[in-house]
């Protein structure tokens, strides 16, 4: 990381590896899985193997390739019930790298706020419609 002391880089790496369950795949241009690792069981991907699987078995990669120079990210993808990943896809050394980072905690927090907000807005919309109807009909 540019301009950051090594100690900061090590700390950020430690935060990520401890708290965000990193897992990865390396995919070749034909859609073959070249390499994989990290905490794949956390995302329910323990049965994916380079020998028996291809990128087609990873549904979140459908239609994504080829990746250009700009990385692609899919935030908050539900991998298992209650387990969400931020998925980052980028090209390095002529290979496609797919990185999964856990974001389940953030989603759980956000969901309760969002649910409350949407329930409230639907209720307000219903009240407004009910208030407007008699006037329109008259």
């Amino acid at each position, binding site marked *: 990381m540019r301009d950051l002391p090594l100690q900061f880089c090590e700390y950020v790496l430690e935060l990520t590896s401890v708290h965000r369950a990193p897992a990865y795949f390396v995919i070749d241009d034909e859609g073959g899985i070249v390499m994989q690792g990290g905490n794949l069981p956390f995302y329910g991907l323990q049965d994916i193997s380079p020998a028996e699987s291809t990128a*087609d078995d990873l*549904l*979140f990669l*459908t*239609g*994504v*390739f080829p990746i250009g120079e700009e990385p*692609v*990210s*899919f*935030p*908050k*993808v*539900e991998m298992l019930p209650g387990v*969400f990943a931020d998925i980052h896809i980028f090209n390095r050394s002529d290979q496609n790298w797919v990185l999964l980072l856990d974001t389940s905690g953030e*989603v759980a927090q*956000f*969901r309760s706020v*969002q*649910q409350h*907000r*949407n*329930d409230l*807005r*639907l209720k307000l*919309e219903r009240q407004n*419609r009910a208030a407007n109807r008699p006037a329109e009909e008259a």
Partner: protein
Amino acid sequence: MIQKKVCMLGAFAVGKTSLVARFVKSIFSEKYHTTVGVKIDKKVVAGENGDINLILWDLYGEDDFQKVRMSYLRGSSGYILVVDGTRAATLDTAIGLNRNVEEAVGVLPFVVVLNKSDLTQEWEIDEGRVSQLAAQGWSFIRGSAKTGEGVEEAFQLLVEKISRA
């Protein structure tokens, strides 16, 4: 088997998740659970040249505070725009989303589902606006995730459009 990615787009609480649940699992729940992020599902459907594995991306609903990230549409072959027939403003959201998609990823096949057709007494969508959009080439299907009306037809129509694209 050929895989095609399809995104579900629309305002919040229009029934995107319910339509996917009806289409994939033939189930419906009255309880509203907001979607956060994206949930991916799949279903095999018959295409003109053989079976297609539809990969369905059920995206969170758009509202004033939370715009849908267009990066989710990368690699999509088409999309379903969902409108709540009992909330006229959700058609405006769908029109805005369609514009954003076309600016971000170009023109893709899409079908509009006017959902909640079982709630006829509360219907708010102006047929004149629907006719105008239909004249511009938009395909509308009136349907209900609750009763199942129009659900299979909407996805099948989208598959046909994708096959012809």
